[in-house]
């Protein structure tokens, strides 16, 4: 039983990261029509930024949660302005290819600088230790990650689906020309959306730093799993991305308990099944 709950907890943690990353991908895709292949690299940059702040500058976890998304998000703004903005009139595939190239550059540079072994990041003192729940031991930091990612995901959902700003965003997703005609600065909104998505990836990176080691390749394989999550959920719905992320994490955790050999392929298998039964994804509509 202990082992089962342990794996479910790990699954839930992984699911929290799947949800945050696929949410960012969905938001970016919605407005920019670009699949951000650099999402994994930007997540890794978030973790490194937090590590740098702690070990070189002496700024701790809580401030890193605030500073990192802004810093990495600003790099995202720069990428959007200087490169992605030139591609909007072209086939969507070019956006994928460009961000793939960016991911290679970022990961290569970090690997040159830091090698491929992981760097440790301490759990903040306030969240060290854990609680014994009777049926399992719950480390405080892991509980925090689940709660915090839920808050982040749900507030993103709230902003996009329930506020005026979000309604502009959704309108621009449907018909950018019309929204622009109403006097809303769509290009600036597109830039900020990309920056926001990148910042979200960086935030996930900071939260991941104490759990997984800070490693230049930590986002490389993760992003492929997140792509599968996105295919399963479909990118039409924000809530869909969140739900799919968490539930696939749990499915993965269960598999690790029941049949460990299949644990790193189970999400891909689910993707194949979903494609056979419901090609547009569980929450998707065809774009």
């Amino acid at each position, binding site marked *: 039983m202990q082992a089962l709950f342990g794996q479910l907890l790990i699954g839930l943690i992984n699911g929290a990261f799947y949800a945050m990353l696929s949410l960012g991908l969905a938001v970016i895709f919605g407005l920019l029509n670009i699949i951000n292949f650099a999402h994994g690299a930007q997540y890794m940059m978030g973790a490194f930024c937090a590590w740098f702040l702690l070990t070189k500058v002496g700024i701790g976890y809580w401030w890193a949660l605030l500073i990192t998304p802004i810093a990495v998000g600003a790099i995202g703004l720069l990428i959007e302005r200087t490169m992605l903005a030139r591609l909007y009139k072209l086939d969507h595939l070019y956006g994928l290819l460009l961000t793939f190239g960016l991911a290679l550059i970022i990961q290569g540079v970090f690997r040159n600088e830091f090698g491929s072994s992981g760097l440790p990041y301490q759990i903040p003192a306030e969240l060290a230790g854990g609680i014994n729940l009777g049926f399992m031991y719950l480390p405080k930091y892991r509980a925090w990650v689940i709660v915090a990612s839920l808050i982040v995901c749900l507030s993103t959902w709230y902003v996009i689906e329930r506020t005026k700003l979000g309604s502009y965003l959704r309108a621009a997703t449907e018909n950018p020309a019309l929204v622009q005609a109403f006097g809303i600065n769509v290009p600036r909104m597109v830039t900020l959306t990309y920056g926001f998505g990148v910042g979200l990836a960086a935030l996930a990176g900071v939260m991941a730093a104490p759990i997984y080691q800070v490693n230049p390749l930590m986002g490389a394989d993760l992003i492929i799993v997140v792509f599968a999550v996105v295919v399963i959920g479909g990118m039409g719905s924000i809530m869909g991305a969140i739900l799919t992320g968490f539930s696939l994490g749990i499915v993965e955790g269960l598999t690790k308990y029941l049949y460990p050999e299949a644990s790193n392929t189970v999400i891909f298998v689910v*993707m194949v099944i979903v494609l056979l039964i419901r090609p547009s994804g569980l929450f998707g509509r065809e774009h």
Partner: protein
Amino acid sequence: MATPDAGAAMQPNSEASRMLIATGIMAALLAAAPFLGVYPVFLMKALCFALFACAFNLLLGFGGLLSFGHAMFLGTAGYVCAYSAKSWGFPPELAIALGTAASALLGVVVGALAIRRQGIYFAMITLAIAQMIYFFYLQTPFTHGEDGIQGIPRGKLFGLFDLSHQLTIYYFVLAVFLAGFLLIYRVVHSPFGQVLKAIRENEPRAISLGYDADRYKLLAFVLSATLAGLAGALKAIVFQLASLTDVHWTMSGEVVLMVLLGGMGTIFGPVVGAFVIIALESYLAPFGQWVTVITGVIFVVCVLAFRRGVVGELAAWWKARGG
């Protein structure tokens, strides 16, 4: 459609003869290359990748489908070919045929799944399935994990030609490459290839004209997978090694880069792209991780400023000056 006139009717013929001349020059250059001081192992590596890139270009350049998982076909054929040659003692021609057939079969299954979605989803699905296959090869015992299958015997081709001889195997590789290259040229210029282009340009229109778009896309996918498999099987025999590198997603990215750099949708582009990238990699090998960074930079530059690729730009320049 323009109104047909004598000039337009002549054009395909003159283009075909120009292509034939260009192919002849390429074949002659490649045949002479080992005597001009080019290292045969480098040439064979570049030719295997050129065939891989040509196969990929058939799908991307002419079918408009970006597969981000083509390494699975290269690697699968490599493993099957390697295993059958080493453990079952298959002669090279049979081992290569079996490896290629395995990739073709995989292509049918993956293709049928992936064409259920379009555009960007197609890329993500192929990438995800390729990752699943990578994990399969990582865990299954017959591939020997990180070590790969080593020391594959080259054997005697048809029981006659001893492939352990450097020049013999070189000309064998060249012959297979040229056969694959001409097959792709033939396919692209057949009615099938024209329908494929029509689907790439406007799928609903092609469907409304009565073409079963899915069937054409699937056939293109399987053809591409088969030829990519042929390249992988050939590579396994040449280098006597089948390893995880060939199924990893970085390999899928590399073939995209070769085609992008050489020129998507051009006949010679993938060959040029493959030679440039392989040459670059062997020169940059001492710099380790910087290869990844430079690869990334080439990607970015190609997408931002050089979308037609080397051959595409040359062709455009040639046309502009009225050639």
